[in-house]
């Protein structure tokens, strides 16, 4: 009985060590590269920016000078979603970052891959978003 218990215990410790060995480097890489923070901050940043643009009474052009290479920026369903560019859809990224905004009289739908900069333009109440100067 004691021998069986010892084997179980060793297996258990082994399982814990394996769990740590597999997950910690993955998390450490994500945290060290600041990718998760960047995605969370950028999605909120862009959503608040969109709220501000929609509140602006006049036509407006705005350059968001922040390199988001390696990510896909999707603006749809009144949400800004940022996910790793290696994934084909936002749902596939386990670390998807998203933040909601409220459009005025519209339903913007844009998807930009690996944008180095974002260019927003609102003309006559219509919003366009591109990754190169419009």
């Amino acid at each position, binding site marked *: 009985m004691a021998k069986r218990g010892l084997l179980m215990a060793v297996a258990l410790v082994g399982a814990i060590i394996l769990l740590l060995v597999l997950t910690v480097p993955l998390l450490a890489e994500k945290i060290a590269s600041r990718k998760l923070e960047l995605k969370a901050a950028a999605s909120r940043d862009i959503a608040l920016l969109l709220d501000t643009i929609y509140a602006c009474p*006049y036509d407006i052009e705005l350059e968001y000078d922040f390199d988001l290479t390696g990510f896909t920026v999707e603006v749809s369903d009144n949400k800004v979603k940022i996910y790793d560019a290696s994934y084909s859809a936002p749902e596939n990224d386990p670390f998807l970052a998203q933040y909601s905004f409220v459009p005025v009289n519209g339903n913007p739908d844009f998807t930009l891959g690996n944008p180095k900069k974002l260019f927003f333009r609102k003309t006559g109440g219509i919003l366009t978003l591109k990754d190169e100067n419009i």
Partner: protein
Amino acid sequence: MKIFDSKKSGEEMSNWFWWKIFALVAVPAVVLFMFSFFKTSVTGASEIPKSLEEEYLLISRFYDSPDCFAYQDEVGRVHPGVIDTSKFKQENMDKCFPESDAHYAYYLSLKDLTYGSMDFGDEIKTSNWVEEGAVIKELGKDILLFYDGKKHNGELKVKIKNVR
């Protein structure tokens, strides 16, 4: 390599009961630590400064955007901070603030300050407004009201609820 030198320590380490306790405490503790560390790190980095209050950011559209209630004259010039009372209707509110996962809901009413303080027109609300739950903020914004071809002193009263 012999891990347990003495017979006694070997017996103790092989005690299944204590290993079960260890597994029940250590594994959840490690998992919880990892998740809390991860969550704190991400939340902290993406925090917007307290001075930038999102609920106020969403209010300016009501009196600044011509697609909401801002007065737009016959030549198409928008007058920010001037509410055209003929636009102050629920159907315009639904276009101005469509359904979304917004964190805040708003309830608006107007006060005419020209001839003393009196309520003016309809009270309108965003589609995510729910009757349950406390109003977290209530504020009055000095604006101008446009009606009868003239601008009048007025106040936009806003009630805000956190709906997330």
